[in-house]
């Protein structure tokens, strides 16, 4: 099997990794309870989606 001839320098590795970025999740406040939630997902603090109660929140 082929092997690398030279060890990669710190700079090279770091330059490649400059493109590794984390993104901020897009959040919105729940229209029912005001808690932050992800769009298109059921609000887990109040259990509402699309103005309707979908599930009963677990810790309340």
């Amino acid at each position, binding site marked *: 099997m082929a092997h690398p001839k030279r060890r990669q320098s710190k700079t090279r590795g770091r330059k490649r990794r400059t493109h590794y970025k984390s993104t901020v999740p897009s959040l919105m406040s729940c229209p029912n309870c005001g808690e932050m939630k*992800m769009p*298109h*997902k*059921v609000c*887990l603090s109040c259990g509402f*989606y699309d103005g309707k109660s*979908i*599930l009963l929140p677990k810790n309340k």
Partner: protein
Amino acid sequence: MEHRKRGRKLSRTASHRKALLSNLSIALILHKRIETTVAKAKELRMYIEPLVTKAKSAFKVKDSEPAKSVHLRRIARKKLKNDEAVSVLFNDIGPKVVDRNGGYTRILKTGFREGDGGDTAIIEFVDFSYLDTAEQEKTDKKSKKKTVKSTAEETVDEGVKKTKRKSAGVKKSEKTTAEEKPKKKSGKSEKGSFNKARDKSKSKNNEEESKD
């Protein structure tokens, strides 16, 4: 080539995938709502909606063409390896969705699972309220528990009576009575581990009684 091929593989072999979808369908039909991953929910929708349509049309032609109705039931039985699920589908769900033209299920995304980070979703029948089904399942569980308890108590009572009779009559060694009892009870008890634990504790009491 994979081009234009419909459906997800779900990282499974064909037979494994088939079994998975069948099992998920049975669970959904019996519970009316299940929580799974988004990908599985979407695959399940493609699998189960035609079956609901079959149940619906079977209900429609039940009186005019009974043979066709039975035929549809048998097709559904091929896809659902469970008799109870088929009867629930055709007796409860079919009549309830007659006025709906497809789209019998609803998928709701419920965030990410702790552990593997899988994106989860709830899939449910549109025509069934989750509060009603949850309540019904609660009552079902309660009634089941009650029946199990009552049967367990009955068997224990019988056991006590027998040992009393024995101790009163012929003098037998404690070991034999202790050995005989669990055999008799295990035949009668429905749920194994639960009743076994009860029987053990009761048989101890009985030993004490026979000592007296």
